[in-house]
């Protein structure tokens, strides 16, 4: 993994995102990977009986994807300081989600190189279903 330094970052820069296809196998991996057995994420009848269109990915899967976006980008010496997001619409089984972000602001704070980002997960049905923000600390080239 290459290391990104704070000086290399441009405000407005897009993060290289990635896509995840939400096949039924991925939904099973989601339950295994998060150990979240609440049936709304794996039992289609249960999800529909609660008024939802189908099973959808859980919080821990969503944040794992958003966090991967940040840790891939920040490199091994980066530190994810803050991550927040809203689950406004569904990522359903059968969707493909696209996880993306861009740099909003870079600044120095208490000797640290900080970067604020907008991040999100979108799908073709809903557009941006999960908007969020994050702050990442990056090493300084001069340090």
């Amino acid at each position, binding site marked *: 993994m290459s290391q990104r330094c704070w000086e290399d970052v441009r405000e407005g820069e897009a993060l290289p995102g990635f896509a995840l296809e939400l096949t039924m196998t991925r939904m099973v991996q989601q339950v295994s990977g998060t*150990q979240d057995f609440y049936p*709304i994420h794996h039992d289609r009848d249960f999800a529909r009986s*609660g008024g939802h269109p189908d099973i959808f990915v859980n919080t821990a899967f969503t944040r*794992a994807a958003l966090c*991967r976006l940040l840790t891939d980008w920040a490199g091994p010496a980066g530190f994810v300081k803050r991550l927040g997001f809203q689950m406004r619409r569904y990522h359903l089984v059968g969707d493909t989600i696209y996880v993306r972000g861009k740099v909003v602001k870079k600044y120095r704070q208490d000797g640290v190189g900080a970067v604020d980002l907008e991040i999100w997960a979108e799908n073709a049905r809903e557009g941006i279903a999960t908007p969020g923000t994050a702050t990442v600390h990056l090493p300084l080239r001069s340090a």
Partner: protein
Amino acid sequence: MGFDISRVKVAWEGYETPLMPGRYPVEFDPIRRHCHMVDDQNPLFLEQGFCPPVMVDYFASRGAWPPGELDILGLIRKIPTPGDRLVNMNHEFEWFKAVKVGERLSVSHKVVSVDVKPTKLDPLSVWIKTETRIVDERGETVALRWNQILVHRTPEQVQAGFIRAEAAA
């Protein structure tokens, strides 16, 4: 019979669980399963034993099964609400230090607010905001987490005016 949110707010807002140790230490296998579910091939996590930041609450938890014991679910289930269906809505983390395989984490949860806010699913949707503190073996704060979960009734329950007995005023 109705639902009196003011009674629930008085009883539950500010309630805090004691600090509880996670069932297991930070371990490689759950980290690898977590990474593989989102195609994360970061060697920091897969090979070098760093815990993905968003997994610290997983390792601070009492475990996934029985289902009521995972993270805040046991606490949420105790708060009287008209329905019992759950959907997470807002989630935020702040981290203070990195964690590695072998460390042991502990957790406490606090109920920040309980409010009724109608949704398309249920006019008596209850929104519960919690704050979670995760600490390491030295008692140093690893992360703070804020979560807002929606508790609602099924469409059939809404139509029937159903309110769970423990929530009925």
